[in-house]
């Protein structure tokens, strides 16, 4: 029985079948998502909380996708381990190792999503110049200044907010928040979405926590490092195979004794 389970998970055919199934259910889900309002709330809460609170009739495809993804994770892990163990003595170790680095990157990205699905936080609010905003980590943020760069035609080129962090009423640091340049403090990020100056200077602020972000970055770096190495090695190998195949084609056309 165990042997059967192991051979199922150690199969490339299983990986192909699981990928086909996952594509099918995500394809189905992409058409369900725009039709149901419930999916609008998916950005605001962690995935697992949303799944627990939403009706199964609209989330079943996501549950099935998660189940397939779990099987794919086991498949990836076992196939990678088997490959490294079986081929550890081979000469082309870089060609053997790089797909496993890609797989490790993929698994890190899945881990990132798992962590974020449990522990992420997102909150949006409007703040004014002088507003105090309490954060879930116990700190308080004071919005000192809200400003914008406007060109001659009135087009807003950029905006920013100057902030100060307080703990128990004592200032601990200060920072500026700009588009694409959030301020991070104790695991939380402060993002400035947009600003308005009428009737008072105000800004839409987002407070966010993504516990999976460092893992996702590590996974992305691993994936790309492995992919680049594999790309170079595979293309070289394909060229050698092509030369062989070209030779065979010549033989087929001209006969095996041909010198042309």
């Amino acid at each position, binding site marked *: 029985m165990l042997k059967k389970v192991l051979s199922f998970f150690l199969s490339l055919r299983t990986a192909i079948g699981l990928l086909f199934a996952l*594509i099918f259910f995500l*394809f189905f889900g*992409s058409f369900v998502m725009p039709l149901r309002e419930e999916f609008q709330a998916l*950005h605001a809460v962690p*995935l697992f909380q949303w799944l627990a609170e939403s009706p199964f009739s609209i989330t079943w495809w996501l549950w099935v996708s998660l189940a397939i993804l779990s099987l794919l994770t086991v498949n990836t892990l076992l196939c990678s381990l088997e490959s490294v163990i079986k081929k550890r003595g081979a000469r082309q170790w870089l060609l053997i190792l790089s797909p496993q680095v890609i797989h490790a990157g993929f698994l890190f990205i899945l881990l990132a999503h798992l962590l974020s699905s449990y522990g992420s936080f997102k909150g949006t609010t409007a703040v004014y110049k002088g507003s105090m905003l309490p954060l879930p980590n116990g700190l308080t943020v004071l919005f000192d200044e809200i400003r914008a760069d406007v060109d001659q035609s009135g087009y807003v080129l950029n905006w920013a907010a100057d902030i100060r962090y307080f703990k128990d009423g004592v200032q601990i640091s200060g920072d500026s928040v700009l*588009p*694409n*340049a959030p301020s991070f403090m104790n695991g939380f990020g402060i993002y400035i979405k947009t600003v308005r100056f009428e009737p008072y200077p105000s800004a839409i602020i987002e407070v966010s926590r993504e516990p999976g972000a460092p893992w996702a970055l590590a996974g992305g770096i691993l994936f*790309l490092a492995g*992919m680049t190495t594999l790309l170079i090695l595979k293309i070289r190998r394909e060229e050698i195979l092509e030369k062989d195949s070209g030779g065979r084609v010549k033989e087929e056309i001209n006969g095996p004794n041909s010198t042309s």
Partner: protein
Amino acid sequence: MKDPLLITAILAVAFYVFGYYRMIFVWSGLLLQVAYLFLRGAHLGRLPIIGPHDTLFFMSASTMLFAVPMTLGLKDRQRTLFPLTGLAVFFIFLSLLYKPHNTPLPPVLKTFWFEAHVALSFFSYALFGIAAVLGALYILNKDTGGSVSPPAIIESLQYKAILVGYCFFSAAMVFGGIWAYLAWGTYWLWTPKELWTVILWLFYSLYLHARLRQWWTGTPSAVLGIVGFIIVMFTYLGVSLFMKSSHTF
């Protein structure tokens, strides 16, 4: 910008058509497209990759940018290159259907991560397009022997295009994730566009895994390459047209 655009488009198409007879015309068409993108970028003060007009024109130029070196050394190169030129011409015509966006970028898009994300995405789309055309060439010529080059070479070229495209696409996803995290506080959003991007990535992952098995080499992998590009076009244009998403182009 409308007249220079039309003149560039007509001239580029003419060059690519004459490219069937002389390679110099293909080079001229490519140089013209690159020059147009460069001048448009200089005029706008940013990479011209916003909106369907710019991205389709960028994809057309990228198709030729990869197709020209990829077909180097092929027997009867022009006959392999010509269908790929047809793909580039198709994208030029499509780009003319859309109005160019000439407004400055909103602050949230003014970042290296966004520009790298979009540029790499369209490099990969171009390569997936090339792979689909090569897949069709393989299927059409595998039995008749009328191939422009041996079918095995064409199929191997398709694999290489997908491998490089997959690498670019993965980098585009990573860079997009970094940009989204810095701009919106999350590296992933649950929208149909993101879901289709993952479907596309999974599909080419499937292709690369399937091709490791003997059964999938040849016609099945050629077919997968063609289906992949249908998914590319739906991810790029279809989702934006038919589904609400954070990606508005």
